[in-house]
Structure formats: C-alpha cells, structure tokens
C-alpha cells in the first residue's frame, strides 16, 4: 500500500532522510518513531506530495507521489503535525470545506461532520471561529477534519500531541475501529511510546535519517531485551537530547553534522 525504496532527501548539505526503505501492507497500522528531527515529518511530506525526494522511489496506493501527484492525493488523508486550520472559519466550516475538497457526498458529509464533532465534543462550539479555540480543541478539530473523508491511507503526524490521556484513548479507539471496518491503512508518528506499543501492528525506528530497526512491537522489545517500548526506543536511539530548527521544512537535527 505504501512503499519507499532507497529514499534520500537533502536540504543543501543536510541529509534529512538517508536511504530509507519500508513496505506497508493494506490495512496495517504502522508507527514511525524517532527522536525530534530524525526525518519523520520529511518522510511524510514526501509521501504526501508536499516535497519531492532527492532520489529513490516512493509509492502510495500504486501511484508515484512525484509523477502522479493528483492520483496519489486521492488515496490519502493527513493530520499535520503543525496546525493547518483556517482560523477565520468556524469549526463547522473547516470541516465542510475539507469535505467539499475531497468530494464527500453532501448528505454523508453532513452526517459525518455531526458524528465527528459530537465524538470530539466540539458540537456545541461548531459555529465558533477556530481562532477562539484552545490548543486541545484545535487539535481535536484537526483530527476530526482528517477523518471526514474515509481515506484508504491515513497519515497522522504526532496527532495526539498535547492531548490528555482520555482524549488520546478516545481518538485511538475511533481510528482503530475505522482501520478494522474500512481496512484503512494508518501511518503515524508519535512520541508516546506506550501509544505506539498499544496501537501499531508494526514499527520502524528512524534516527539521523536512517531506519535503525523495524518489526512488531514485541520483536523490537525482544531484540533490544527491553521490558517496554520506551526502553527499547532509548536503547536504540541513545539518551542525548536532539536539537531542532524551528522552520518546518528544516526539521532536521543539526546533529547530522557531527555524528558520533
């Protein structure tokens, strides 16, 4: 369903993604884990047609996101890491605009917006402008919006960042249900390791632009001889804190320069 072969992305001298390959089957929930600036977001941007790889081959639902952008865009939905709502529109308008862009039939769209906004407990605020929302509400709305059209592939870039455990559980159970019911493939990144452990069928750990481990959560724990996925993650990526540039396109650790 999703595949990457020897994908490299450079920004000038900086190698953000360095020879990454993976294969994700239809209906799989795949977690892409890595420290800040490891190349997760850059990889997602390449898969979702926002960036073109320097070299290598990508495929998404049988389409090449570089050469067949429009076809590829039909097959996925995405919840971005950074906010991407229109602040000057209401919650409902944001959802509706998204549905129209993705060609969801009118009646179905109305039902889904109501269902999702109720699920995210935003229904009574549906006619308020998004700029008056709190951070958590915006996040919930953003996820709700990403789910309005049921895509074949769903990309979630740190979707649950900044949400409380209740909401996170709530959202993941919804996504898992969609995954089961519609055989939706899910590709997500997160810093909450227990979340990845619980939800993901398979995990890839990326660091300094390279995939350093791939497998089921159990396999990874066994390999690193760790009790929890968090321990396994730390064993794989070390304990140093990563620096990160603020600009979104350059979310690549400067640590790349001085590799140990």
């Amino acid at each position, binding site marked *: 369903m999703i595949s990457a072969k020897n994908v490299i992305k450079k920004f000038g001298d900086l190698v953000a993604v360095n020879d990454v390959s993976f294969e994700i089957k239809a209906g799989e929930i795949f977690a892409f884990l890595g420290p800040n600036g490891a190349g997760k977001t850059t990889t997602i941007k390449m898969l979702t047609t926002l960036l073109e790889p320097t070299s290598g081959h990508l495929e998404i639902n049988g389409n090449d996101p570089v050469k067949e952008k429009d076809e590829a865009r039909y097959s996925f939905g995405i919840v971005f890491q950074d906010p*991407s709502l229109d*602040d000057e529109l209401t919650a409902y308008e944001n959802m509706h605009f998204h549905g129209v862009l993705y060609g969801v039939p009118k009646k179905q769209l109305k039902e889904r917006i109501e269902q999702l906004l109720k699920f995210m407990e935003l229904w009574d605020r549906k006619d308020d402008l998004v700029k008056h929302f709190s951070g958590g509400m915006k996040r919930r709305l953003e996820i709700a919006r990403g789910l309005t059209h049921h895509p074949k592939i769903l990309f979630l870039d740190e979707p649950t960042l900044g949400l409380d455990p209740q909401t996170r559980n709530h959202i993941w159970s919804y996504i898992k249900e969609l995954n089961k019911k519609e055989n939706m493939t899910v590709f997500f990144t997160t810093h909450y390791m227990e979340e990845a452990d619980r939800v993901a069928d398979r995990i890839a750990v990326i660091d300094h632009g390279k995939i350093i481990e791939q497998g089921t959560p159990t396999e990874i724990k066994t390999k690193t001889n760790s009790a929890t996925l968090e321990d396994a993650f730390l064993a794989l990526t070390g304990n140093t804190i990563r620096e990160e540039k603020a600009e979104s396109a350059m979310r690549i650790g400067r640590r790349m320069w001085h590799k140990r």
Partner: protein
Amino acid sequence: MVGSLGQPLLFLVALGYGFGPIYAKAGGGNYIQFLAPGVICMGILFTAAFAGIEMIWDRQFGFLRETLVAPVSRFNIMLGRTLGGATVAVIQGIIVLILSMIVGFRPENLLMLPFALLFMFLIAILFTAFGTAIASVLEDMQGFQLIMNFLIMPIFFLSGSFFPLVGLTGAIDIIAKANPLTYGVDGLRGTLMTMNHFPLSLDLLVMTLVTAALLAIGSYLFSKIQI
C-alpha cells in the same frame, strides 16, 4: 475594507480638487472626470494584489498545506483563489465608483457600464494572479513591503491614472506603455468617459493577453510549491 476605501477617496478629493483648477487652466477640462477611473483602478489594484499576496499568510499559518494535499488540481486551487480575490477587488472598485459619483464624478455613458465592469474584472484578475505568483515564490511576509514599494506603487503611479498619456516623452512614455495597468485605466476611462488614449480594442487585447500570461505563470509557480 473601510481602510482600503479611505485611500482612493483621499486621492480623489485631494488631487481632484487640488489640481483641478490648474488642470482646467491647462485646457484639460474637469480633472475629477479624468481622475475618477484612475482612482477606481487604484482601489482594484491594491485589493487584488493584496488578495494574491495574502497567500503567504496561509502558508505561514499552515492552512495552505491543507489545500495543497487535497485531491484537487493545483490549477483549480489557484484559479479559485484568484477568482475569489478578484471578486472582492471588483466589489471594492464598484464601491469606489459609487463614492466618486458622490464626490462629483459623472460617467458619460452608463450604457457602457457592463464593459467598464469587464475591464474592472480583467484588472482584478490580472493583479490577483500577479500577487499569487509572487506569493508562490516568497516564503514569509518580510518581502511584502519590498513588493509594495518597488512593484505595486510604481505600477500604480506610472500607469496614467493621474496624468494624460498625450504628449509624454522619453522614459516615462515607454514605461507607461509597458505597464499593463495603463491599458486597464485607459479601457475604464474609455468605457466610462470616452476619454481613451488607445483604441478600446487594443486595451482589451493587451489586458486579456497579460491576464492569461500571468494566470499561466501563477499556476505554474503555484504547482511547484514545496513545503
């Protein structure tokens, strides 16, 4: 909206009444009648260019990404943005027209109004596409002032909005003739006042061609955006 209406009105009153007597003495006739179409163009130009450049905000606040990954061709997105911005700009132009009529502007032939609207639309689309093309290349608002001062202002001041093209010589003649807005102003002046310098067909031809070219360039640059 109110803020962007104040400026054209100020130009109309200050220049119209300020230079009016001298203009009449020089044998030019009523300056307000001459100036009003130029000021209408000014309202459209600024609103349209800004509507295009506004896309930089969408990029900074992330909303642009939502439209860029949508399964809608980038050409359609660009076209939608342009037509939306142009519509606002034309409404702006119509309001300035009404205001200028309150101040003392009297269009000669109201029957030509649909054609005047056509020219207003062309000016609006041209400069929205122009703004969008610029915004596709710029990453943040830092360059915005630069564009206003070095592109939009000269386009406006050197377009014959304020002065007749008759008898211009040298560089300013060449610049005015190379400026697409000149033909827009002239077209509007021709349809509202029959005071055109060029034939209306030439005005229409130049405006259409430049608009088409800018739409093509704008959508090309827009389709190449990587975030």
